[in-house]
C-alpha cells in the first residue's frame, strides 16, 4: 500500500510501537509498517467516547441478532407459537383478544409482552425480526457498496466517454422515486422467479427485496468514489506508478483504492441503517416479508393497527429501532471524525 504521505520502504519504525501495530484494524491495513492512517484513525477513535459507546451498541445489536436462536432457546419461547392457545397460559389474552395485565402483558414469562389477537411472544418476535432485517441490510449494503465502488472506479479512472455515459446512467437511476420503485417492482421481481399462482417462498422474497434495493442502492457510492478517484488520478504517486509501468488494474488496486477506503467506509456506515429502514418500510406497507416470517418492519404495521388499545406493543420494537439507527449515525460521524479530524461537528 502506498499513500501520499508514506513511502513503501519505511519498515523498521513499526518496532517502535509494537502494541499499536498489533491492535491495528486488520481489514484495511495488512502488513502495516509505521503509523499508517489506519492506526492513526484507530488511535483517535479509541479516544472518542461517543464513538466507542455507539460502536458497542451496534456490536450488541449484531450479536443479539446473530445469537437470536440461542437466546430464544434459553428464554424458552419462539416467535411462531400462539401462546394464547397453549394450556400453560390460560389467561394470556382477555375477551377482546388484548393482553391481560398492564403494559401489553409484560411479565416474567413474557418480558416484552404478548402480541394482541394471536398471543405470540414479543421478545422473540423482535429478536428474530432484527435478525431478518440486519442480515438483509448487510447483504444489500455490501452489494450496493461493491457495485458503487466498481462503477465509480471505472468512471473516475477512465474518464472521458466512459465517465460521461456512466454518469448519465447514474443520473437516470437517481431519477426513480425510490420507495415507489421498491413497491412497484417487488411483484415484478418476484414474478421472475415464481408463478403468481403459487405461494412465494420466503427465501425468494428475500432475494427479490435484495435485488430491488440493490438496483437503486449504488448510485450515491458510485458518485462518491468517482469524485475521489478523479482527484487522486492526477496525483504524483499515481503518475509515478504509471511511469514505472504498472498496469491500470494494479494502479487502481494498490495505489488508488487504499486512499479511498475512508470515504467508502463512512458512506457504508451511513448506508446500512437506511437499508434497514427501507426494508422495514417495505414490510410496513405490506409488500416485504409476510406472515409468519418475523420482521422488524411488520411489527410496526401490527402495532399501528392496535395502537389505540395496546400502545405498549410498539414500544420495544420502536425504541430498539431508534437506538440502533441513532447508534449507527453517531458511529458514522465518529468514524468520519477519526479519519478526518479537520471536519468538526
Amino acid at each position, binding site marked *: 500500500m502506498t499513500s501520499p504521505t508514506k513511502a513503501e520502504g519505511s519498515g523498521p519504525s513499526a518496532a517502535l510501537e509494537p502494541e499499536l501495530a498489533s491492535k491495528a484494524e486488520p481489514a484495511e491495513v495488512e502488513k502495516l509498517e509505521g503509523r499508517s492512517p489506519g492506526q492513526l484513525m484507530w488511535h483517535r477513535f479509541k479516544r472518542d467516547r461517543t464513538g466507542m459507546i455507539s460502536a458497542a451498541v451496534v456490536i450488541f445489536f449484531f450479536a443479539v441478532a446473530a445469537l437470536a436462536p440461542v437466546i430464544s432457546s434459553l428464554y424458552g419461547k419462539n416467535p411462531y407459537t400462539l401462546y394464547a392457545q397453549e394450556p400453560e397460559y390460560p389467561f394470556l389474552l382477555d375477551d377482546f383478544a388484548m393482553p391481560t395485565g398492564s403494559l401489553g402483558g409484560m411479565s416474567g414469562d413474557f418480558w416484552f409482552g404478548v402480541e394482541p389477537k394471536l398471543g405470540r411472544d414479543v421478545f422473540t418476535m423482535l429478536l428474530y425480526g432484527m435478525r431478518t432485517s440486519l442480515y438483509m441490510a448487510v447483504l444489500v449494503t455490501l452489494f450496493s457498496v461493491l457495485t458503487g465502488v466498481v462503477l465509480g472506479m471505472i468512471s473516475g479512472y477512465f474518464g472521458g466517454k466512459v465517465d460521461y455515459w456512466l454518469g448519465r446512467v447514474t443520473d*437516470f437511476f437517481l431519477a426513480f*422515486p425510490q*420507495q*415507489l420503485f421498491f*413497491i412497484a417492482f*417487488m411483484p415484478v421481481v418476484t414474478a421472475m422467479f415464481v408463478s403468481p399462482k403459487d405461494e412465494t417462498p420466503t427465501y425468494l422474497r428475500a432475494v427479490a427485496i435484495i435485488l430491488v434495493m440493490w438496483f437503486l442502492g449504488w448510485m450515491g457510492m458510485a458518485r462518491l468514489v468517482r469524485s475521489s478517484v478523479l482527484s487522486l488520478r492526477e496525483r504524483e504517486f499515481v503518475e509515478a506508478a504509471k511511469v514505472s509501468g504498472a498496469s491500470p488494474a494494479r494502479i487502481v488496486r494498490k495505489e488508488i483504492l487504499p486512499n479511498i477506503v475512508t470515504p467508502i467506509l463512512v458512506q457504508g456506515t451511513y448506508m446500512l441503517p437506511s437499508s434497514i429502514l427501507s426494508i422495514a418500510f417495505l414490510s410496513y406497507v405490506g409488500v416485504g416479508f409476510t406472515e409468519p416470517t418475523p420482521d422488524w418492519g411488520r411489527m410496526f404495521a401490527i402495532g399501528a393497527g392496535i395502537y389505540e388499545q395496546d400502545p405498549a406493543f410498539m414500544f420495544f420494537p420502536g425504541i430498539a*429501532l431508534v437506538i440502533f439507527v441513532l447508534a449507527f449515525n453517531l458511529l458514522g460521524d465518529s468514524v468520519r471524525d477519526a479519519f478526518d479530524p479537520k471536519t468538526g*461537528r
Partner: protein
Amino acid sequence: MLQFLIRRLSGAVVIMFLIGAFTFFLFYSIPQDFAQLACGKNCSPENIAVIRENLGLDKPITTQFWEFMMGIVSGRDFPQGHCAAPCLGVSFDSGDFVWDSIMDRFPLTLSLTVGGLVIFLLFGLGTGLLAAWKRGTAVDKIVSGASMVLSSFQIYFLGPIVLGLLVYQTGWFENPKYVPFTDNPGSWFVGMLIPWAVMATIFTAQYTRMARSTMIEQLQEEHVRTARAKGMRQRYVFFRYAWRGSLIPIVTIIGMDLSALLSGAVVTEFTFDLAGIGRLAVEGSLTKDLPLTMGVMLFGAFFILILNIVVDLAYAYIDPRVRLA
C-alpha cells in the same frame, strides 16, 4: 434564464421517456402471462382471452410500447371508452383509467409533500441557524442533541405516539383526515396538521444538523473572517456572508432529498391511514395490477423531476455561477 429552463425541461422529457421505456420493458418482458396476472388465481381461459384482447396483450411488445407511449402523448381508445391525453393505460384490477385514479389520490400526496417541505424548511433551517449562531452554548447542545435523536426516529413510530398523545389521550385533535383544499381550507389545514408535524419532525431534525454544520463551515471561510476583521457587525456578516454561502449546499441537498420527501409522504400516508398515491401503488402491487403500479411510478418520477426543476431554478437564482454558465 429561458435557455436554462428549456435545457432542463428537454432533459426531463428524455429522462421521462427512458424511465417509461425501462419500466415498460422490465414489466412486460418477464416470462409471465399478464392476462393471467390480471385475472387472478382462479379464472377461465375465456376470461384470459378477453383480457388479453382488451389490453392489447396479443400484439408484439414493441407495438404495445408504441401504443403506450402514444397514449401518454395523444390518448388511446379502450373498450371502456376514450382515455384522454396523458393516458397511462387501464387498471387490470378495477378497469379504471390509471390517470384518473392517480389524479383522484394525488392532491393528498401533494398537500403532504409541499406542506411538509415548507414546515421543515422553516423549522429546520431556523433551528440550525440558531444553533450555529449560539455555537458551543447550552442552546446549541440542546438543539444538536435533540435533532440527533429525532432524526433517528421513524415516521411509523413517531406517528402512533403523537396520535396517542394528541388524539386518543387528550382528544385535542381529531383523527387526521384529508379534506380537499378547495372544499374547505380550514379543515384541510386542521386535518393535515398532525401528518405534517410528524413528517416534518424527522426532516427538520436532519435539516437542523445540516444547516448548522454548513453555517459553521461557512463562518470559518476566509471572506467571512475578513468581513469580521474589517469590523462589520456580527449579524450582518452572519446573514449576508455566511448564510448566503451556505444556501448553495443546502439547496443542493434539498434537490437530492426530493425523492426522500416523496417517500416520506408515502410512509406518512400509511401511518395515518390516508389514501394517497403511495397507497395506490401498494394496492396495485398487492393485486399485481401492473399498469396501475407502473403508472404511479412514472407519475412519481415525473413529480420529482418537476420539483427538481423548481429547485434548479432556485439554484440559478441563488448562485450566479449557475445562472450565467
